[in-house]
């Protein structure tokens, strides 16, 4: 029992600590990347190549005055950032970074909480993310924040539908909800060179899912909740100091979690990148290290993709956004699901 608790604590420290620790790196990548794309420098003064910039930001946030305006609802105003962050971090518990491995004669699952319902759990929890935003917007008691929260909620639930159709199609294909067996299905190659990734089986579902995660994590081109030109800052307009920073952290963690799930469903999760087998050889330790490395590389590429899209596409108008969600993506997802099911069925019979 004690051993189990110890094991869980160590895994929790690593798996939750690592993404939280990588947020500063994502911030640097995002700001320097923005500079790179707009032909300017970006923050480059603090430390070598501006790498210490996020650290400086954190200290600045800590030392700023924490204004709690007189018109807010104090209890909900205080807990809203905490809801946002906790809900964003929780799905990390079921995302594995490598295959189960043996350690001291014991099989260790490289995720905090091993369950057969991994995918289901992750999506159920990350869908709660809209509560943090809604509570923040309502508790701020401000017209901008209220509108921002309402918009964010309507947008998140709308895109969750097409996201769900993509997930159902993928789960039907893999016949399992367990992340390890989903990844096992995607290990190996077709014709000796093409990885057996879900993306090549289900490109439509992959696109639906990709659009869905951009909308879910409130990133451009779907950041209508924050739309500076119309709502100033949206749901966190009345927040200052570290509370504001916590909302940002929650957004980045949410982004990481959703890109992790995208990679698990469509890009083979922790399965090795092509060519990595040569490095592994027979060593089991090497295999685990390479799996972790592949997962980290795939996640980094996803994060870069988020930054890339953010500085390439302009923001949607709200009615266009809702029309895209309900009248284009949802029927596309439903027809994709029906066709997938029929093709699989008639191939079996």
């Amino acid at each position, binding site marked *: 029992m004690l051993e189990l608790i110890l094991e869980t604590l160590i895994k929790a420290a690593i798996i939750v600590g690592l993404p939280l620790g990588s947020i500063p790196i994502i911030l640097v990548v995002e700001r320097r990347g923005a500079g790179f794309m707009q032909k300017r420098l970006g923050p480059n003064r603090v430390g070598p190549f501006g790498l210490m910039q996020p650290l400086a930001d954190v200290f600045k*946030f*800590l*030392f*700023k*005055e*924490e*204004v709690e*305006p*007189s*018109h807010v609802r104090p209890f909900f105003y*205080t807990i809203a*950032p905490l809801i946002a962050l906790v809900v964003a971090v929780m799905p990390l518990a079921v995302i594995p970074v490598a295959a189960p491995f043996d350690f001291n004669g014991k099989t260790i699952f490289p995720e905090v909480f091993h369950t057969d319902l991994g995918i*289901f759990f992750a999506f159920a929890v990350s869908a709660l993310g809209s509560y943090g935003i809604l509570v923040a917007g309502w508790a*701020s*008691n*401000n*017209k*901008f*924040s*209220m*509108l921002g929260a*309402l*918009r964010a*909620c*309507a947008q998140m*639930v*709308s895109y*969750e*539908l097409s996201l*769900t*159709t993509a*997930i*159902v199609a993928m*789960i*039907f294909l893999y*016949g*399992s*909800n367990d992340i390890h067996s989903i990844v096992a299905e995607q290990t190996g190659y077709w014709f000796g060179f093409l990885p057996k990734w879900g993306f090549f089986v289900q490109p439509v579902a992959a696109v639906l899912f990709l659009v869905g995660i951009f909308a879910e994590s409130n990133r451009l081109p779907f950041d209508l909740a924050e739309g500076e030109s119309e709502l*100033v800052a949206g749901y966190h*307009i*009345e927040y200052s*100091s*570290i*509370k504001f920073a*916590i909302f940002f952290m929650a957004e980045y963690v949410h982004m990481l979690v959703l890109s992790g799930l995208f990679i698990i469903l469509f890009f083979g999760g922790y399965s090795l990148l092509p060519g990595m087998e040569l490095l592994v050889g027979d060593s089991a330790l090497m295999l685990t290290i390479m799996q972790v490395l592949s997962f980290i590389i795939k996640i980094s590429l996803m994060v870069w993709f988020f930054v890339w899209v953010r500085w390439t596409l302009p923001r949607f108008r*709200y*009615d266009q956004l*809702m*029309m895209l969600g*309900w*009248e284009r993506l*949802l*029927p596309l997802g*439903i027809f994709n*699901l*029906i066709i997938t*099911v029929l093709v699989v*069925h008639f191939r*079996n*019979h």
Partner: protein
Amino acid sequence: MTISKVLGFKRTLVRKMDIYESGVNPSGSATRQYDVKYYLTAILFLLFDVDLVFLLPWALGYQNAQDQTFMIYGFLFFMAILLVGYIFVINSNSLKWEE
């Protein structure tokens, strides 16, 4: 958050505690009437999402089912009902945002 509360500067002004409205004097309350479409969207999301979530156990059960053809008929019937509902929703214009 506690650290920030202790370390942060404190200069309390009355104006600072006001509602932020781009520097203009705040007018009216934030809990005024909002467009009913937000509510409609939420209700419709509930309907469709529950429908789609019902399909998750179905997708898991299909591989081990004894009569897979029957499962497919059930699925098609279910999707037909969903599609009829969807067409009704679109035709009722409850999701038209541009006016």
